[in-house]
């Protein structure tokens, strides 16, 4: 029932076009109030966003009368990558999310980035859904650059996520989609949840509720706001990083992201060759383990997990 359009096409060498498709929903009657873009697949190996796009589309098809604004769904920005388990832009092997705002006068990844910004220009909001990568599993969270804190944190609090992580601005992140869109006045939230190459049904439904709630608050949907969870705010505590002390096979002792105590065992690094346990990975602080390694092969330094601990509070 939404209008499906090709919003960007670029010829490929042999009888095919690269394309980005969008499904657009508009009110049956009257002018749209505001415009939101729901975006996934900037990284071709991240699929949680595809499921959220499906759930949202399904909901909108069932509730056309509630639609008061323009709702654009872009499930696959790096469409070549999504259909081939390729994180970066194939052929060029470049991370699309380090190529924004892009340029018409540059190589293919930059042209795609430029086209994406052009198509979404004028949106009031954009929700950029990522699912970490194949190495890490994340609880639903929104990441916000410090400079955008005041504008974006209130919006993120509507999204039914578990954690809002405000991080220091890093210049290299100025080449991301979110930065490019925030710069041109589209309030853009980056959601990280789940793990690459897989989808988790529960997280998909959780974020759907958040999207519906955000749209209710902003008058894009004529529905009552939902009763959503209030995320943990990163400014009340600190993030501890667990990095592998040695190479080997990481065997987690914990299944899911959860609350853990200081000193508890997160997992072990073992040697497949010698049969030795090489290292026991211990939580340096108590708190919520919001990132855990999903891919077992590790080198020295490989990220095994991240714990958020609230200050001055025993957990």
């Amino acid at each position: 029932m939404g209008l499906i359009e090709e919003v960007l096409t670029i010829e490929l060498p042999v009888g095919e076009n690269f394309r980005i498709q969008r499904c657009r929903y508009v009110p049956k009657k009257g002018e749209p109030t505001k415009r939101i873009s729901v975006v996934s697949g900037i990284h071709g190996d991240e699929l949680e966003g595809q499921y959220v796009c499906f759930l949202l589309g399904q909901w909108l098809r069932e509730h056309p009368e509630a639609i008061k604004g323009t709702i654009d769904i872009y499930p696959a920005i790096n469409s070549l990558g999504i259909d081939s388990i390729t994180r970066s832009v194939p052929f060029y092997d470049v991370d699309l999310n380090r190529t924004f705002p892009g340029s018409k006068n540059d190589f293919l990844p930059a042209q795609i980035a430029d086209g994406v910004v052009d198509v979404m220009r004028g949106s009031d909001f954009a929700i950029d859904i990522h699912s970490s990568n194949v190495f890490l599993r994340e609880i639903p969270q929104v990441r916000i650059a410090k400079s955008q804190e005041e504008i974006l944190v209130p919006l993120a609090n509507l999204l039914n996520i578990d954690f809002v992580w405000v991080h220091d601005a890093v210049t290299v992140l100025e080449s991301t989609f979110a930065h490019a869109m925030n710069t041109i006045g589209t309030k853009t939230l980056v959601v990280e949840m789940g793990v690459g190459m897989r989808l988790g049904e529960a997280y998909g439904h959780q974020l759907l509720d958040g999207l519906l709630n955000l749209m209710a608050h902003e008058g894009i949907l004529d529905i009552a706001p939902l009763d959503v969870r209030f995320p943990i705010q990163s400014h009340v505590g600190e993030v501890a990083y667990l990095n592998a002390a040695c190479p080997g096979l990481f065997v987690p002792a914990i299944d899911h992201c959860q609350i853990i105590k200081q000193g508890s065992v997160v997992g072990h690094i073992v040697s497949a060759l010698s049969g030795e346990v090489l290292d026991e990975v211990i939580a340096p602080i108590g708190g919520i383990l919001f990132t855990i390694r999903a891919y077992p092969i590790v080198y020295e330094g490989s990220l095994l997990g991240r714990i958020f601990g609230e200050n001055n509070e025993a957990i």
Partner: protein
Amino acid sequence: MKRFDIVTLESPNRAAFRIEGFLFGDENSKGPSVAIVGAMSGDHINQLYVASGLVEYLRIKEEEGNIIGRILVIPAVNAYAINMGEKNWPLDKTDLNMMFPGYALGETTQRITSRLFETLKGYDYGIILEGRRDQGMCLPYVKLIQSGYEDLECVKDLGLGFIHYRPHDPIETAMLQYNWQLWETKAFSIVFGKNGAIDQSTSNEVHTAIVRFLSKREMLDTPVFEGRKSNIVDPNRITILKASRAGILISKVQCGAHVQKGETLGKIIDALSGQKLEKIVSPCEGIVTCQYAHPLIFQNSIIFRIASVEHCCHIDSAKSTSD
């Protein structure tokens, strides 16, 4: 010559990762010092070749007693990727040249670049042999980004034809050149060749330019021919020719060619029907500094960059990030 490991890192199963360095000259020498960094990416084979060629050349010069400064050459930063046909760090696909200055307690690749950077700090000059980010090939040129600490004078001693001197992109703040400059090394990149391949004449030109630099900057006692007077490239004098169609690209000219206005430079044919889709004609007189080097071309890709003495009128946008 002293050959030593700058970085070693154990792997779960394969043999340890190593970054090897070759040091020439007396460690206590009062002369100036330079570090030369080769292949940071697994497809920078031409960069590897030039760097290893320098090691052999400097070994002979050292035996002859002609090293007066201190010269470190690191032919391969990412040997793990080179050995398996990958471009980036093989496990997590991060580009090592996007990980500077590194972080000793961070992710694996941050630890690698951090340890490497510790060794690179303190050199007077830093030469980075770089490949391209796209499918192009180009005349060797100097890429000097404006960090506030760059040194335009010294790069002229290379005697290469072109110097791209421009503000830095956000992503370049994570690259070696920018960070090295911040640590007050006069760092610059020489960009050349085609990724994954070796071009002999280009390699010779870069080798000669570096030898000239080492001689003029008093690290190497050897007579050299004068190089070219470098042109600082003004983006307004570069004409960009783009492919209006995708297909098979047949190029009629090589990098370095001096082309005339109206000259046919190549064509694009339909990869299935064989039909000619586009004839590529030069809109101006100039020198081809860069060309698309893969036989298959995408729509809107840049086929040629042509540098002209005169301002060219055919530019449809001022901004172009890759050069």
